[in-house]
């Protein structure tokens, strides 16, 4: 039996979601009270889903790894959230937002999902305003919009440089209200460590209480995974320290398909790495590229002098600077999509023109903008980012150009879900960054917030009912069943095994090694030889980890090293799967760039005839190669084009 049925509703694109809602099954209020739903994660997706399901009357259990739901990493998103409101009257529409998202995703996303996303985008803005999210406003009192990531229309709503924070606090306030009304039970400092399946359906989770270190069992009629992406498999990324892919990975190992793992996004404007001890990378909003000009020295000797501290960037004459994005992409210049900008930076640095002490940085220069607009305007637009940069790098960006370098930022791949956001395991749902569905091979700026909230507020609370409607006769799930017993025992054994290794290497040191391999071979530029090498080397790391890791303390108490080790064990396996998927996809598309597949100008070259599919990976056991099946992406409504940012 093929488990891959995307369940796309029939009918014209614009009517699919309406038709679905008109025909789906609902759960009546009296029955909702009897149904338990577990939501893992409290980011934009998790918090909004938990709050909404609670309001609807379901009994919701919501888990978060931090001390408070308000700390989920959605909070760090800076730029904004897209919606097709067309308030500025510049020609935007639901269709245009849909089209841009599909095109931005390099034609590797599902049409129906993306259209639905664009459709509900407007409601999100209404919802957030009603919650008291202080979006930026014009002097007339109307909402303000800006253009983002090179989009031709201004459709991005924002709250200074803290849009993610404000949206998350909006969802958090809705969640807090639901907690107060006893619609949601909140579990903070809990980490999901496994999924429990009974008779083929997701029926609960085992979570580790991070304070006591004890494992606890929770049963429910459905489980929703909203745990974000797996970017930290690269060790250095813009993700938070606790961001991890383990919840999704446990689901994969329990039978959920993992889709498009190789689709990882690299963000071009991060603060460069400064040393071995670096723990994470800091992202600066892409909006910087609206006014900043990216360049490296034209002459290698200049670049070298800069690296050795003998020359300052301001001393390089205008004619000796290479504004390589403007040179290569005259039409879009510094505003080319993220993947293009990132690769171009790496290309220059690899060719020996990089700056900074490491040679792994390029300049983002505001001198022209300051001259043209005045320092005050630049400060009003980017003041907080400049301040952040100065605190980290100890250099004043008003005077010397900023240094930037690309970093792992977002993962488009994730748990495979159908139109209802349900995975291949009945009763297991995935929303937000944790699923794969809406961004294809590359995500547009200001679309992550949109997707998280769309899934949580407006999609899942509908679609989950279609599943739960035939669960009403199932009594509350008891957690003393053999399935719970067995799953808990497995984790206990895993923990005991880890604790008994008592090796020589710290978790972080092994994670750093994994990160190096991932960045080197599975990062921006991938090729067959490199990926094969990566797979071999990751195997070595896995062996090293399971024989040599050192975890102080006890397994059943608060133990930060054990927490990290459990996550790293999964990251290692994930890294391997990412490499497998990247190896399998012999084309370049979006964030996935295979050097063997590029145009004469060095641009990504898709092979639509062969690779118009979602790769869906199925776990086949510890020592077996996972099996890939394909969900074909038949485009009914859009004609695929090769991306062109030159003219």
């Amino acid at each position, binding site marked *: 039996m093929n488990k891959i049925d995307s369940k796309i509703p029939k009918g014209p694109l614009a009517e699919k979601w309406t038709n679905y809602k008109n025909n789906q099954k609902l759960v009546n209020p009296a029955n909702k009270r009897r149904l338990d739903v577990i939501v893992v994660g409290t980011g934009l997706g998790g918090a909004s889903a938990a709050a909404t399901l609670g309001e609807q009357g379901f009994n919701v259990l919501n888990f978060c790894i931090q001390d408070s739901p308000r700390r989920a990493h959605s909070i760090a998103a800076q730029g904004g959230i897209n919606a097709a409101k067309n308030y500025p009257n510049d020609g935007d529409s639901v269709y245009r937002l849909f089209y841009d998202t599909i095109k931005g995703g390099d034609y590797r996303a599902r049409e129906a999902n993306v259209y639905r996303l664009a459709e509900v985008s407007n409601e999100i803005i209404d919802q957030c305003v009603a919650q008291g999210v202080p979006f930026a406003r014009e002097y007339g009192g109307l909402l303000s919009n800006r253009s983002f990531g090179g989009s031709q229309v201004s459709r991005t709503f924002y709250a200074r440089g803290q849009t993610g924070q404000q949206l998350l606090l909006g969802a958090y*306030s809705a969640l807090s209200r639901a907690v107060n009304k006893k619609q949601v039970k909140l579990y903070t400092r809990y980490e999901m460590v496994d999924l429990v399946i009974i008779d083929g359906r997701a029926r609960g989770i085992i979570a580790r209480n991070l304070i006591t270190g004890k494992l606890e069992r929770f049963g429910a009629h459905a489980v929703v995974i909203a745990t974000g992406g797996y970017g930290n498999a690269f060790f250095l990324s813009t993700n938070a320290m606790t961001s991890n892919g383990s919840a999704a990975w446990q689901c994969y190992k329990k039978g959920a398909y993992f889709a498009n793992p190789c689709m990882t996004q690299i963000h071009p404007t991060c603060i460069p790495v400064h040393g071995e001890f670096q723990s994470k990378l800091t992202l600066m909003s892409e909006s910087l590229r609206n006014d900043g000009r990216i360049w490296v020295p034209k002459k290698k000797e200049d670049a070298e002098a800069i690296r050795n501290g003998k020359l300052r960037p301001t001393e390089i004459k205008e004619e000796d600077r290479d504004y390589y994005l403007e040179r290569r992409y005259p039409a879009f210049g510094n505003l080319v999509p993220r993947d293009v900008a990132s690769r171009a930076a790496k290309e220059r640095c690899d060719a020996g023109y990089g700056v900074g002490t490491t040679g792994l940085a390029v300049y983002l220069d505001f001198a022209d903008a300051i001259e043209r607009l005045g320092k005050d305007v630049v400060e009003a637009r980017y003041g907080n980012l400049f301040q952040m940069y100065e605190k980290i790098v100890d250099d004043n960006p008003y005077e010397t150009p900023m240094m930037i370098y690309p970093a792992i930022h977002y993962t488009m791949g994730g748990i495979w879900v159908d139109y209802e956001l349900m995975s291949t395991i009945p009763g297991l749902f995935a929303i937000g960054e944790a699923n794969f569905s809406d961004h294809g091979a590359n995500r547009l700026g200001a679309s992550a917030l949109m997707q998280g909230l769309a899934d949580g507020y407006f999609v899942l609370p509908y679609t989950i009912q279609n599943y739960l409607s035939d669960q009403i006769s199932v009594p509350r799930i008891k957690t003393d069943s053999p399935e719970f017993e067995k799953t808990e025992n497995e984790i206990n054994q895993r923990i005991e095994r880890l604790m008994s290794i008592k090796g020589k290497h710290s978790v972080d040191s092994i994670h750093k090694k994994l990160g190096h391999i991932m960045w080197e071979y599975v990062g921006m530029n991938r090729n067959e030889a490199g990926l094969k090498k990566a797979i071999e080397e990751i195997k070595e790391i896995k062996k090293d980890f399971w024989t040599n890791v050192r975890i102080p303390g006890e397994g059943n108490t608060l133990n930060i090293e054990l927490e990290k080790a459990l996550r790293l064990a999964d990251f290692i396996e994930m890294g391997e799967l990412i490499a497998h998927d990247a190896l399998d996809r012999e084309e370049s598309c979006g964030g996935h760039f295979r050097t063997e597949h590029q145009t004469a100008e060095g641009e990504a070259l898709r092979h639509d005839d062969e690779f118009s599919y979602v790769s869906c990976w199925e776990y086949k056991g510890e020592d077996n190669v996972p099996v890939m099946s394909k969900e074909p992406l038949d485009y009914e409504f859009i004609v695929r084009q090769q991306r062109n940012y030159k003219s």
Partner: protein
Amino acid sequence: MDKDINIKVKVWRQNGPKDKGHFEVYPLENISQGSSFLEMLDILNENLINEGKEPVVFDHDCREGICGICSLYIDGHPHGPDEDITTCQLHMRTFDEGDTITVEPWRSTAFPVIKDLMVDRTAFDKIIQAGGYTSVNTGGTPDANAILIPHDQAELAMDAAACIGCGACVAACKNGSAMLFVSAKVSQLALLPQGKVEAAKRAKSMVAKMDELGFGNCTNTGACEVECPKNISISNIARLNREFLKAKFKD
């Protein structure tokens, strides 16, 4: 120019809520001034692990100054001796060769220590749960532009909404008062027409919860405002007082 420095860190170690706790002094060599304070602690922990000891437990997550989880009291300041930043944004260039840096957890009855430098701040969640929201369900909301909000009013609300809930205000306050935190949320929502509807009820229930949880009485020392990494103004406290008194006199 950043150089490498040798320092000592004097860290509070407390093995669980009931443990008495004590300070340990750890010498660290060749710490780059370009590294962040938390990266310095990472190095310390790496050393401790290699020596077979338990690492220092501290809260940290986004490491870019927005999640609000970091909570270290460093050399007499919440978030350390630099302005307008969280602990994770503090860099070692603030310190010099030979310094002994004292690192303590937030000290407040309402924020009990969990382990070492990690404290329990669920009290803040409980305050928000008591009323830090507008009572709207998902869906059925009017168009986002249906109600005009003056630009300056929205900006003022945003100033208050910038709070990251780290608790530095409580840690800095000699009275262990949470007024700055509570007032930021009450102000944000009272300033916006969407939140104004419930402003009176919200002020009352959030203040009641704050009192119940054992936070102190504000005496307007202004220490909170000085240490707030997001520059939340104590004018918000005046506004909270106003909202609260108005509500009480209306009853």
